[in-house]
């Protein structure tokens, strides 16, 4: 009897769901995770990437004006194509070889995502640096019913492409270690 009741309740709930067009909530946070093994020691790689004030390892950056190298510092990063990025340092932990930054102003021509944050960590695997790039963000279109080029899939692809560019720059500088 109880099972029949449960089944009945489920059917009713399903019917109710069809009848009522649910007003959906906004988007949920998305993430990406990409890893590369480099032909260099973790210390060598961290020496290059473990700073908020310089980004010499990354081609296409023409200038960086940073307020400091401590958590909470901000910077304006200008790229060769004229893109201006405003960023904040969320975390810089030399012991853990971890640096986290976020865009304080969304820039959809740079990456099709909003509230985008990047977390880079360097780990040791048999003397080689393993660099992990994690993205946490919301899709580019913050409302319901996003256009195809700004939905969850398109935004995830855009972040992954951006991070692949960072990986390519690291491989170009240190060589692939895998």
């Amino acid at each position, binding site marked *: 009897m109880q099972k029949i009741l449960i089944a009945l*309740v489920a059917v009713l709930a*399903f019917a*109710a*769901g069809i009848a009522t067009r*649910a*007003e959906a909530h906004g988007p*949920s946070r998305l*993430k990406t995770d990409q890893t590369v093994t480099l032909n260099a020691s973790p210390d060598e790689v961290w020496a290059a990437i473990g700073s908020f004030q310089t980004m010499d390892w990354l081609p296409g950056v023409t200038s960086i004006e940073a307020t400091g190298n401590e958590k909470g510092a901000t910077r304006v990063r200008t790229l060769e194509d004229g893109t201006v990025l405003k960023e904040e340092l969320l*975390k810089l932990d030399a012991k853990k070889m971890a640096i986290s930054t976020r865009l304080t102003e969304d820039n959809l021509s740079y990456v099709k995502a909003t509230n985008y944050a990047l977390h880079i960590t360097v780990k040791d695997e048999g003397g080689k640096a393993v660099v992990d790039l994690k993205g946490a963000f919301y899709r580019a279109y913050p409302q319901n019913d996003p256009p195809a080029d700004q939905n969850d899939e398109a935004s995830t692809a855009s972040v992954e492409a951006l991070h692949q560019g960072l990986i390519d720059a690291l491989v170009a500088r240190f060589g692939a270690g895998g």
Partner: protein
Amino acid sequence: MIRAATAGVALALCLLAGAGGAEVAAVTSQNAGALTLVDTGSLQVLATLPLPGKPAAVAVDGRRGRILAVAVETARLHVFDLAGAPLADWPLSGAPFGLAIRPQTGMALVTDQAGNLLREIDPVTGQELAQWQTGALPSGVAEAEGVILVANRDGESVTLIRGAVQQQIPVGHHPFGVTLNDGRGFVTDVLSDQVSVIDLASAAVIATIPTGERPYAVAFAAGRGFVTNQYAASLTVFDAQSLAVIAEIATDDYPEGIAATTDGQILVANWFSDTLQVIDPVALQVNQTLDMPEGPRAFGAFVGGP
């Protein structure tokens, strides 16, 4: 007839065994669209259930044998028993997000971020029983000892409801998670990197506790409070009485939902790392790490047992 009776007794025994089982942690995985039930004693995963619609908030009503979860994208209140059998699945109005269970009645309190409302829903019938106006973008909610507290993220305030009396209390930037403990409310001010402590009797902020970056939620065990710090990947530990910060414990990445078990462990869902970590609140160390489906959030009082 005798056979039918025997079968009936066997079914009843099965139901009893299910209802009389262990305490469970019910973890929502938002990205995967799943609900994972963990036996908090053995720390074994009991079941992984599909839960579509990007679920975040969850609450376990151990006494009444129910697990409630809000799917934000589909705007539905899902009801399961403690073994994970789906009992009901109700449509909700507006943009539902946060969830708590009223201790006296088992009714659900759901925040509606579209209407800036708190709605009371009967999880058995799906009927809306009451609603209260809140501040802008109500997020976390909790109730204890006749007091309901709602964190209004964009209103930068807390709504305190006691019977027919309703008060707005200003707090820090982007208050999100709410936990009640011993006559006090603890609200995470996400963009202020602090917890606001509210004395429920006087409806006033009596202290702020500094946390790591992007505090999300609070739980209590062993006379201590534990705050998940999303960006810092850590827990801030403070003394529940003096409110002094005692320690910081490193966790996996983006720790979010946090709750205590009755045997005094702290469980933390790590959204980025896809793990549930078990923390000893006395030794202040991570004892165990369990894998979860992608994007565990477990926002709410996600632990309970009969």
